[in-house]
């Protein structure tokens, strides 16, 4: 199936590309790689790592393990879990919608990349993690920070550039860091977060083996389809598998890197296949379905905690808005957008909860209202917060401010109490 899939792609540079082809060449392809309409059940993705199982015995295909623990009832979650998932996704969606409003009102500036449509991936993975597990993300990081536990107030203030933000206004939209919640960023360069995440996983293993501490922490690295053409991705897949690091590589394949379709930029677009090439399981899951994502995530996290090494999970998802708020989003076909809008993860979860009598419409409405109020309160808080003071410009450049050197009077510059009052002339 994989080979036939590759053969139908018009490769760049062929004669067909002479004309400007409409961006959506995806529709006629038979594989369910794009536009899976499976109902909410245990993940039934067939294209799993099994070919190399004979050669590399310790790596087990995820599908097989999941099959073994046959659930006795047909429900995947309890009511409490369901409400937690629902609330988290609604928070992500409302927050991002509010960001768009605030940007157009001029309260936010620079580059803002919104996560609408991809909430199932963030919620599905991060709600399984503990506070001491780490998450590393890209510039599309607001919702990862929120799911990990950073308060909406802190994120909104950061976006407004206020001193009460999670990074005191110094980072901005693309650089959400929180030591307390082990949110390790927020990186502007794609692929940059993957080695950082691999390092965090390395630390976890080091703590366990060298420092003899009790450490079961795992790291989840989120990145997109465009990143999978970058060298750092492959270097880290290799090292993570080599050192058996407790990391999960999560590809949020939303099919587009700004205006570049995944199919136009990738020789083999099935990213999950790159896992087995490096000796780890590669899983493809429907990223518009939080329950499927959660099932796959559970297994991948357990693998990592047991010390069995990394997993590559490709989540097929979609961003409902443009790449950033400055992107006119002209290249994506309306039919493609409509197809994915119909698979909105929030609507799907709502339907599941109501149909399986896990929650009533009323309860869900209460949650939505609560989140609306929370987000509005976050905006008010951010608005009312002060901008960073002038003296903050020179703070936090170094952990040890002696790095600013010795001044003309022979003492360290940082020891002068008036040091941070200077400007560009310092």
């Amino acid at each position, binding site marked *: 199936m994989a080979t036939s899939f590759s053969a139908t792609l018009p490769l760049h540079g062929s004669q067909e590309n002479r004309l400007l082809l409409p961006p959506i060449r995806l529709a006629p392809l038979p594989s369910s790689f794009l536009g899976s309409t499976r109902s909410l059940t245990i993940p039934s993705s067939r294209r799993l790592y099994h070919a190399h199982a004979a050669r590399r015995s310790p790596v087990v295909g995820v599908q097989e393990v999941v099959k073994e623990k046959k659930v006795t009832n047909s429900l995947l979650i309890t009511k409490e879990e369901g409400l937690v998932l629902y609330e988290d996704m609604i928070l992500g969606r409302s927050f991002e919608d509010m960001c768009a409003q605030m940007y157009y009102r001029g309260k936010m500036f620079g580059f803002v990349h919104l996560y609408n449509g991809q909430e199932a991936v963030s919620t599905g993975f991060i709600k399984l993690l503990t506070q001491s597990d780490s998450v590393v993300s890209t510039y599309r990081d607001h919702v990862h920070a929120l799911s990990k536990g950073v308060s909406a107030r802190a994120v909104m203030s950061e976006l407004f550039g206020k001193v009460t933000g999670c990074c005191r*206004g110094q980072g901005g939209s693309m650089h959400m860091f929180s030591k307390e919640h082990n949110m390790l960023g927020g990186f502007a*360069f794609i692929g940059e977060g993957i080695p950082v995440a691999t390092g965090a996983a390395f630390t976890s293993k080091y703590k366990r083996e060298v420092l003899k501490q009790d450490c079961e922490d795992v790291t989840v690295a989120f990145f997109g389809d465009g990143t999978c053409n*970058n060298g750092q991705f492959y270097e880290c897949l290799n090292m993570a598998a080599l050192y058996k690091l407790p990391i999960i590589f999560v590809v949020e394949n939303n099919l587009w890197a700004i205006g570049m379709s995944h199919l136009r930029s990738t020789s083999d677009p099935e990213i999950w296949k790159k896992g087995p090439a490096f000796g780890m399981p590669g899983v493809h899951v429907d990223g518009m379905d939080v329950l499927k994502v959660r099932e796959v995530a559970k297994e991948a996290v357990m693998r990592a905690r047991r010390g069995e090494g990394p997993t590559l999970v490709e989540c097929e998802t979609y961003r409902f808005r443009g790449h950033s708020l400055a992107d006119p989003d002209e290249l994506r076909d309306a039919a493609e957008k409509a197809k994915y809008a119909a698979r909105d993860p929030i609507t799907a979860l709502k339907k599941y909860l109501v149909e399986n009598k896990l929650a009533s419409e009323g309860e869900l409405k209460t949650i939505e209202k609560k989140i609306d109020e929370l987000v509005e309160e976050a905006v008010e808080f951010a608005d009312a917060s002060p901008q960073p003071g002038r003296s903050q*410009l020179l703070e936090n450049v170094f952990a040890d401010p002696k790095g600013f050197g010795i001044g003309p009077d022979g003492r360290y510059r940082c020891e002068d109490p008036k040091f941070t009052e200077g400007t560009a002339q310092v």
Partner: protein
Amino acid sequence: MWGILRRSAVDGGGFSASSLRRTRFALVSARSYAAGSKEMTVRDALNSAIDEEMSADPKVFVMGEEVGQYQGAYKITKGLLEKYGPERVYDTPITEAGFTGIGVGAAYAGLKPVVEFMTFNFSMQAIDHIINSAAKSNYMSAGQINVPIVFRGPNGAAAGVGAQHSQCYAAWYASVPGLKVLAPYSAEDARGLLKAAIRDPDPVVFLENELLYGESFPISEEALDSSFCLPIGKARIEREGKDVTITTFSKMVGFVLKAAEKLAEEGISAEVINLRSIRPLDRATINASVRKTSRLVTVEEGFPQHGVCAEICASVVEESFSYLDAPVERIAGADVPMPYAANLERLALPQVEDIVRAAKRACYRSK
């Protein structure tokens, strides 16, 4: 228009010589008004430069992220895919090291690539190829392999884009022998320097500025000609003066010109030099200017330590020391990664007031 008026002058008969002279004078000034009022944005200037060079030489091709179907992340390469096709305008995957390397290899083999970085910050992922594969090759191969490649893209700070999108790379690239580093300001600079860069047989790092893309500048008829080219290594004196020399490049030229206006009100006549070329640096023009004014203020947006300003100060102190009447002044960006908060970002970049203050200090008009 000329023709009609001439005919009326001839047919009129009653036109006296003086009125004819008046008419001709009016026509001449009308023509010069028409020529001077032609304006062009930097974006259009760059676009037209690439377009003309691509049509003149089929070995020139464009490569980068979003340069084709998206019409360019900042619309600099708009329309090129439709005009030249996907064999000459390549949308690459997000793999700077890879596509920069491919560009350099293509240049080794005789093609003339124009590689676009979405911002020069991303060039750090490819810097090995720019320095080791491109800059040093002509030397290492003793002249056998030259690399006629252009690396271009926005450089320096934009508005609120955070620490990883705001660094200025002029100093880094300008310190490497084998590279030519250019930084245009106006539309005419952009057109002339980019055309020169594409025609140049050596690797050129072309540092644009995102905030200048939309700005319009008057452009002369001569600059609109398709064979127009500016010399690499020659700075431009934007404004003549006699009290203090202020050198700068890229977006800061606009700030310095505003500062010069303010200084003129206070009786200080500033000579503004737009460097245009960071490597090779036009030391002759800078030194000649300093010998005339005896004071130097250098301005740049990048980090202060080991910056372009440092090099200019060193050059002036070495070559024109006895002409200096005041210590040389450097205005640079703050020695911190660019903060996101709007007020901190403003503090981290040189503003017009900072330049005015430094110039006055150099002229001993204030503390």
